[in-house]
């Protein structure tokens, strides 16, 4: 019968219409902003920098190695190294950035910077409400705006953060043990060696798979 296909279509539409009152499957609307979609742990929008402890300046994990700057596909990271070094979590003196800027009006949120960072410093944020009427002053984020505490990172990416924290704690224990051993060796009476305490132990920073530290 001509029109039977249309009628069958109408029945489908009616089923969906009626179903939208009782079935969550058919009524999928999220009442943003009152209601928010839970973002998965892996969600990534824009990068941020992790710092340990309470002071963003002293605890910043970034060592200004510029790997992220080189690998960033749209080249939206800009780093200037500081002349002054500071100790990292295992007490080794590391470079630190004087300027660390990310232009989020260019950033494509690909997450390659977080992937290649060998110091667990740059991670992906999940805040997407970034709109602004002003282009020039709001979208160039400086080091101060980018730095977020480790607790924030733990909240966003619990499993990733747990793995990172465990690894860093292990590094620290290893470094301390090595320092103790070095100190003990230095303290032992050896005729040629001088009695002053040994230099800080040289422990390579944790390097994840596939990453290579820039030369």
């Amino acid at each position, binding site marked *: 019968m001509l029109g039977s296909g249309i009628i069958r279509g109408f029945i489908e539409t009616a089923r969906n219409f009626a179903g939208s009152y009782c079935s969550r499957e058919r009524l*999928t*609307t999220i009442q943003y902003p009152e209601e928010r979609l839970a973002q998965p742990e892996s969600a990534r929008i824009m990068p941020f920098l992790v710092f340990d402890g309470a002071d963003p300046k002293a605890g910043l994990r970034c060592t200004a190695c510029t790997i992220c700057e080189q690998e960033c596909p749209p080249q939206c990271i800009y780093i200037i190294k500081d002349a002054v070094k500071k100790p990292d979590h295992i007490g080794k003196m590391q470079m630190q950035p004087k300027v660390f800027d990310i232009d989020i009006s260019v950033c494509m949120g690909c997450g390659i910077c977080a992937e290649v960072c060998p110091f667990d410093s740059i991670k992906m944020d999940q805040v997407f*409400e970034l709109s602004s009427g002003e*282009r020039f002053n709001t*979208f160039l984020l400086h080091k101060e705006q980018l730095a977020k505490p480790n607790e924030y990172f733990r909240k966003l990416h619990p499993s990733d953060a747990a793995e990172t924290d465990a690894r860093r704690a292990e590094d620290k224990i290893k470094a301390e043990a090595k320092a103790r051993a070095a100190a003990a060796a230095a303290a032992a009476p050896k005729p040629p060696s001088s009695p002053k305490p040994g230099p800080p132990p040289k422990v390579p920073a944790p390097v994840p798979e596939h990453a290579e530290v820039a030369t």
Partner: protein
Amino acid sequence: MIDASLRQEMARQGVVTTTVQELYNWGRKNSVWPLQFGLACCAIEMIAASMARFDIARFGAEVFRPSPRQADLMIVAGTVTKKMAPQVVRLYNQMPEPKYIIAMGACAISGGPFRAGYNVLKGIDRYLPVDVHIPGCPPRPEALLEALMALQKKIDAQPLTGPDRPRHLDANAPGEYLVPECGEHDLVPSSNSQLWQPPVLVRGE
């Protein structure tokens, strides 16, 4: 003018007071009709925002108009290329006042990831006045809704008189903008110098 505390008291008693400005802006902000106009990837997220899950209709902005003559809002959703830029400006010029622009996504703001390209316009604000920028590549549909709410706030706050009044109530304000032409190597001119005045930023080593 009625002061705020008196108004609150009256509202509690069931008397709603308003001003012409508030009523006018209330109507405008809740019926922002966008132009049905997608350029690239962000357009898919714009469509997603108008679909069931995010439902831009809750903000009165689901009426995507195919014709610029009926639209209030241009969502520049995607990369504007140099070949497309004259058409985008022309579309904007064809829209009636009051009109607004949301630059959705990194490409529309600054050229984004494609800014190194020879055919990519480095930001639509070289030719048009943008009201709200949304960074992200592409921004989530919620981010578009958030930007729409920001735009609504902006409309709501516009006074109808005085020097800060919107462009459509100011006879001397420009309604149309310069349409660039395709030259032999680049667009001519390469930006609208009246609109595009970037700050000077110097990088040392």
